[in-house]
């Protein structure tokens, strides 16, 4: 058990790097507190698996350090780091029984058979594998196999952290839900650091206490699901989290005021700095309402999802989506919008201006 710190960590799969895009992971600084449940969220190819493999020791970073409890362990291999990792596709040892599969990591570490037996039975009970312990592992279904992979990760009680690399990709949707709650339950029971990589925001937001959002090799924001929703620090977080994503419109900043379509917009804070090449205003569809006056728009279409209505409108600076209650009456044709001040943010070069 340890606190994991990543310091100025960068990794590239190329021999020489000239541009930012040559880096798979770029200048990452983060602390993973002992016992936390983290999700590493981002689209495919953003570097999250690379980052995970760097922590577990499968990849040596090009630059930077990894610290466990403030001790540098960058050069240690996965066994020395004592990390468990579960992969996207179930990895099982075909020729072994379920029992032997679960016992394998312990046997490799020369744990005595009595202890292995009690440990394996405990984990098998937790994952509901007890009845199949003596079967050959290769005969199981995909989710059974993935449970074994999970079990091999959980069977060692002294690991520093457990990493999950999109572990539920191959699982049926309804089992996905069950396994995810199981993981959450396990986290509460064993209280070990868990880092869960996914590109699915629902998975990330339901599993984790802290969500780390990655974009093009960088960590753009770390926070609780509510923080990510209410105050995205980067326009990417605004787009990526929430459905539909945040409205981001080009705007001007003059004398510390945000000007959209020639109109001054109140934002959550006064702006002092103004030296950006690109300035934008961001507001989530949930925080916009129709009003008698405000930003003039044309209502294009209304779609009802059952839980709420999504309204597409067009303003001078671009399209704006609005989420309204299902029973709310929606004006047609021309209308005016009101942005909730506390949830309206200004962004300079994609980062929030504060």
């Amino acid at each position, binding site marked *: 058990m340890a606190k994991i710190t990543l310091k100025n960590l960068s990794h590239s799969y190329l021999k020489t790097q000239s541009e930012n895009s040559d880096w798979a992971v770029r200048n990452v600084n983060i602390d993973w507190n002992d016992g936390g449940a983290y999700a590493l969220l981002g689209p495919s190819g953003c570097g999250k698996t690379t980052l995970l*493999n760097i922590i*577990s020791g*499968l990849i040596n970073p090009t630059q930077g350090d990894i610290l466990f409890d403030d001790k540098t362990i960058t050069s240690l*291999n*996965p*066994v020395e780091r004592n*990390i*468990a*990792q579960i*992969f*996207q*596709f179930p*990895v099982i*040892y*075909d*020729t*072994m029984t379920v029992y032997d599969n679960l016992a*394998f*990591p312990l046997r*490799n*570490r020369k744990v005595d058979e009595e202890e292995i037996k009690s440990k394996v039975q405990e984990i098998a009970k937790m994952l509901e594998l007890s009845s199949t312990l003596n079967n*050959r592992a*290769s*005969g199981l279904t995909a989710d059974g196999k993935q449970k074994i*992979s999970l079990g*091999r*990760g959980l069977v060692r009680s002294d690991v520093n952290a457990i990493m999950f690399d999109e572990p539920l990709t191959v699982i049926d949707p309804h089992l996905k839900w069950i396994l995810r709650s199981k993981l959450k339950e396990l986290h509460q029971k064993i209280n070990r650091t868990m880092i869960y990589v996914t590109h699915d925001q629902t998975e990330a937001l339901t599993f984790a206490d802290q969500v780390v959002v990655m974009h093009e090799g960088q960590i753009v924001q770390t926070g609780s699901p509510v923080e990510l929703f209410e105050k995205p620090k980067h326009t990417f977080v605004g787009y990526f989290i929430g459905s539909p994503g945040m409205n981001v419109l080009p705007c001007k900043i003059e004398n510390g005021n945000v000007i959209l379509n020639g109109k001054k917009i109140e934002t959550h804070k006064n702006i002092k700095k103004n030296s950006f090449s690109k300035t934008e205003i961001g507001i989530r569809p949930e925080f916009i309402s129709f009003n008698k006056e405000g930003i003039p728009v044309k209502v294009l279409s209304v779609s009802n999802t059952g839980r709420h209505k999504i309204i597409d409108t067009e303003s001078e600076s671009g399209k704006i989506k609005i989420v309204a209650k299902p029973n709310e009456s929606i004006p047609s044709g021309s209308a005016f919008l009101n942005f909730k001040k506390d949830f309206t943010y200004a962004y300079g070069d994609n980062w929030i201006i504060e």
Partner: protein
Amino acid sequence: MNKTINQKAWFFVIPVFVLVAFNAIIPLMTVVNYAFQETFGNNVFMWEGTRWFKQIMLSERFHAALGRQFLFTFIILFIQIPLGIAIALSMPKEGLGVPVCLVLMSMPLLIPWNVVGAMWNIFALPDIGFLGHSLNALGFDYNFTQQSGDAWFTTILMDVWHWTSLVVLLSYAGLRSIQPAYYQAAEIDGASRWAVFTKIELPKMKKVLTIAILLRFMDSFMIYTEPFVLTGGGPGNATAFLSIDLVKMALGQFDLGPAAAMSLIYFFIVLLVCWVFYTLMMRNEAQS
């Protein structure tokens, strides 16, 4: 559901049936025909029943040839399969080395069999061949045309040179298809290199290895051209494997009846061994 009954589709099967009939069934039936009869030419046949089969089954000559054949096949399988796996494991996994190795490996497979025999014949000649001359220069008394041990050594070496590549290519294909996650998981689980080999690589290669062993068994059990060109079955009968002996009987002595009976026995041995082996290898696959 009512099915329309239409037997016309059978006509589509005719080309295949004719083809198979002419290249397999009819020749095989001719052999069966010869196996139960005696002929002195002029298309005159006399019924002999199972006499030729009894004769072959009891003949010392057949037992000896069969013994040599099994010994040869076991030796080459014993060398080629582990050697092939070892080479496949040590081949590069990426970069320019991959195509270079693959092409080099394929070379022996592309050479016609009688050329392989002729090459090795010249290569191993004790007076002028590079191998033969070098061995003698090093102090070994090597002469594959006169000493049966040397003849066996050369035949086996030739077969290993010619066919190990096949095992290598199949094993390499099997190894490349293993997902990297297996190796990563094994690393996380703290598995030793040996455990990675026995618990991941070998089980994952099982299917290609089954194919490799079957192919090498059948090919080596029916080997003819290369030893015929290299040793001609000699010295004496030392390297007269089953097909060499069979050709001697059929074309050398013109004993068509016994030769036909021997062909059928030969055929059933190959079939039986392949079936038993395949069934044993695949008996666990059916469960999963």
